[in-house]
């Protein structure tokens, strides 16, 4: 194959099967050692917070994201823990804004 021993991490198999998105995901996921979903999640949450400044929107979209992908096989357990902390911080911030502000 083109990549030699690196076929599995280059995503060529997925590309030749006609799955460009899965091929790109495989490539990024191999380079980020399984942290792609977590990094996407964190970047998305940061961008959303910087743009909208709306914790409730952040929390709800985070819950949507996790309820879709959290138990999928391509996500790492350790990255779930990072997302857990992010969600807890957002929820605590929300309760603080609702109650104590």
């Amino acid at each position, binding site marked *: 194959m083109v990549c030699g021993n690196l076929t599995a991490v280059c995503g060529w198999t997925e590309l030749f099967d006609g799955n460009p998105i899965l091929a790109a995901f495989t490539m990024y996921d191999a380079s980020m050692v399984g942290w792609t979903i977590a990094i996407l999640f964190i970047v998305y949450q940061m961008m959303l917070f910087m743009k909208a400044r709306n914790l409730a929107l952040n929390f709800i979209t985070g*819950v949507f994201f*996790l*309820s*879709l*992908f*959290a*138990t*999928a*096989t391509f996500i790492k*357990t350790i990255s*779930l*823990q990072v997302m*857990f*902390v992010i*969600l*807890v*911080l957002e*929820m*605590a911030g*929300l*309760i*603080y804004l609702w*109650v*104590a502000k």
Partner: protein
Amino acid sequence: MNSVFRLIVFTIFLNIATGLVMYGVTDSGVYGTKGTQIFSDNTGNTFGIVYNESYTSTFVGDMNTTINPTGDLEDRDNAIYRVLDKMNLGFLTRIKDAVTKYLFGFIQFIQSTIGPYMEPALANFIFPTLKTVIFIGYLLGVWLLFTGRAFSD
């Protein structure tokens, strides 16, 4: 509101939020089983944070126990005053023991989340230091409560 009191309130809300997220966030059923709790105690996705009722035992159990004066009461004249003094002191001590568990909850949260990823020497240094800083903040907050003016005024 003084910043340390905000921190106490935020710590309590962190506790509530942890329970809400652990029990409230479930799978949608697209890739997994619908209704499965993603962050429940037995999935191991909670950084070792376990949500149970035992944390309130110092408030619920120890506060209800009887306070006994230690030692003999040889001075019979002032016995009742000594008992009352010791009861008050014991009650204050128990409140202090219960509250200190909660006063540094924010540091413990940080410690249990990012602590395992740090070098043990650094973690053993940084978190007690943070607790000391927070403790100084609490002292300033208590000063504010007693005197009605900030320490820096």
